[in-house]
């Protein structure tokens, strides 16, 4: 019987505490309203999080299991992505079902004219000791401005801002030999009709874009080169700059019809914006946006049969800028 009474006492105590707490909650105003529990939603969240654990573990196992060369990127991505997706799903269910969705009202912030006035007042009243405000401000501006310009001056070390001379320079002059991509000199007799060849200046870094050429052998009878270039194409072999005069891509397309009567005529084409140049006509632009023909390099064949430059280009190479058509300063 004693046990029974102790039990009743204990239960009453517990119940009483519970009821008191409930009463207290009912009395005070809650900030966040109460919501109904949803055990099903909790189970879904737990399940999704458990799945996330499995996928996450899968990532670690996949990473460990394979060597770098065999590691399947897809599996790694799926494990990580699915783990994240399960967490996202869990959070969504949590947000929609396990957290109260409140819809509250509040004020949009308005202007504060009083504070604006006070700010202005503070600023104006602070200037009571100055007699020559404008002069002081000008002097401050001059000092700050000069300092600013001084701070920017080291930027000029980045490159020759005031000198566009490097844009004019090419490695070609009379006698420079043409070489292929393996630095082997090019024999005129190796240049076959209808073929498409690249050349560079001998002894020059091929990354110098002024060095890059396309070389073709065309029918001399059909050439219509601009005046003054009559001997620029010995045996019909001629060279143009490979760098497109539009935006600078390498021109490595050559249209060469086998049956010209029915096929588009020969042309050098740039793959970037499809500027098309007529090699028979001094690489004049016949399609596309380029604004200038490709500069031509005069060629000659030396006594050993190798191709050499007979001078510099007919114009500056590459995309246009302010000075691209200027009269050349040196030959």
């Amino acid at each position, binding site marked *: 019987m004693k046990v029974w009474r102790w039990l009743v006492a204990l239960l009453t105590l517990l119940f009483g505490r519970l009821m008191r707490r409930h009463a207290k909650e009912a009395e005070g105003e809650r900030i966040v309203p109460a919501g109904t529990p949803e055990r099903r939603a909790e189970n879904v969240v737990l399940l999704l999080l458990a799945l996330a654990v499995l996928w996450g573990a899968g990532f670690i196992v996949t990473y460990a299991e394979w060597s770098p060369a065999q590691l399947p990127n897809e599996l790694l991505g799926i494990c990580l992505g699915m783990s994240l997706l399960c967490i996202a799903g869990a959070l969504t269910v949590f947000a929609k079902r396990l957290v109260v969705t409140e819809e509250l009202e509040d004020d949009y912030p308005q202007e504060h004219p009083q504070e604006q006035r006070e700010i202005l007042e503070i600023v104006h009243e602070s200037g009571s000791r100055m007699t020559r405000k404008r002069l002081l401000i000008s002097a401050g501006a001059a000092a700050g401005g000069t300092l600013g310009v001084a701070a920017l001056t080291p930027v000029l070390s980045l490159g020759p801002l005031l000198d566009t001379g490097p844009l004019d320079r090419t490695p070609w002059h009379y006698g420079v030999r043409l070489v292929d991509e393996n630095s082997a000199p090019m024999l005129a007799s190796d240049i*076959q009709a209808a073929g498409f060849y690249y050349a560079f200046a001998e002894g020059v870094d091929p990354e110098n874009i002024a060095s890059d050429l396309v070389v073709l052998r065309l029918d001399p009878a059909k050439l219509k080169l601009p005046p003054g270039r009559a001997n620029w194409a010995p045996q019909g072999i001629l060279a143009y700059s490979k760098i497109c005069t539009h935006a600078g891509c390498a021109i*490595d*397309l050559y*249209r060469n*019809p*086998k049956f010209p009567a029915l096929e588009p005529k020969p042309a050098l084409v740039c793959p970037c914006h499809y500027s098309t140049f007529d090699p028979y006509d001094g690489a004049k632009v016949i399609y596309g946006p380029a604004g200038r023909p490709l500069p031509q390099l005069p060629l000659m064949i030396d006594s050993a049969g190798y191709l050499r430059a007979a001078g510099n280009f007919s114009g500056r190479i590459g995309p246009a800028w302010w000075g691209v058509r200027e009269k050349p300063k040196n030959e």
Partner: protein
Amino acid sequence: MTGNRLIAVLCVLFGGLSIVAVAQAQPNSGIVRPTTEPSTPSVQLGSQLFAANCSSCHGIDGKGITSPRPGAGGIEGMGPPLKGVGAMAADFYLRTGFMPLSSIHDEPGNDRVLFSNKELKSLVAFVASLGPGPGIPTPNPTAGNLSEGMQLFTLHCAGCHQEDAEGGFVTGARVPPLQGVNATEIAEAVRIGPYEMPPFSTKLISNSQLNSIIKYVLSTKHDDNAGGWRIGNIGPIPEGLVTWWIAVPLLIIACMLVGRRFRRE
């Protein structure tokens, strides 16, 4: 629609489509063959096939036709002479289906292989007999070096054929992708320079270099797409399509899951 009406409509549709399908399945009626063909290839068979099917553009005995002229089957005929082009050119153009052309103004495309293997061999033998010319090459891509092939392909070929041999555009012409071509066809094309393609001589690309290039081109059939779905191997256009047609819709769905829709009170 009532049940009977529906059945009638479906019958007409199905019937109509079948007729079209069967018609498409018939061989092109443009090829003229002798009624009895010998069982082995021969120059004579080639000569007959040539006369019946090719001479309307390429002229009798491959002499060429320089101005358009109405030919057999109502086709306007005009074409280059074939003396001296050799077995190589004939083999290439016929095996790829570039020839015969359905219209002289078309760019040759490789979808019309209209002759049997025996007929092809005969035609090739006939064209080779028109004058001395290069024979069919025998490349050996397994002897090539894959890395050298990639470098040479990039230098000489990628400008037109695209770095991954997916084909491309030259103003006025379509450059075909190369995943469906075999080693012989690649070797032939490089030496011939078909249509607008420039030819590459052995001085420019040696036979051993050509083996390497062919090895690389063949490897583009099975690119190492370690990153997943290849989406075409042509660069950012498909990537942009995936961004806007897969990623953005999924993200909008995610926003709709998390946020709420319009409601009116």
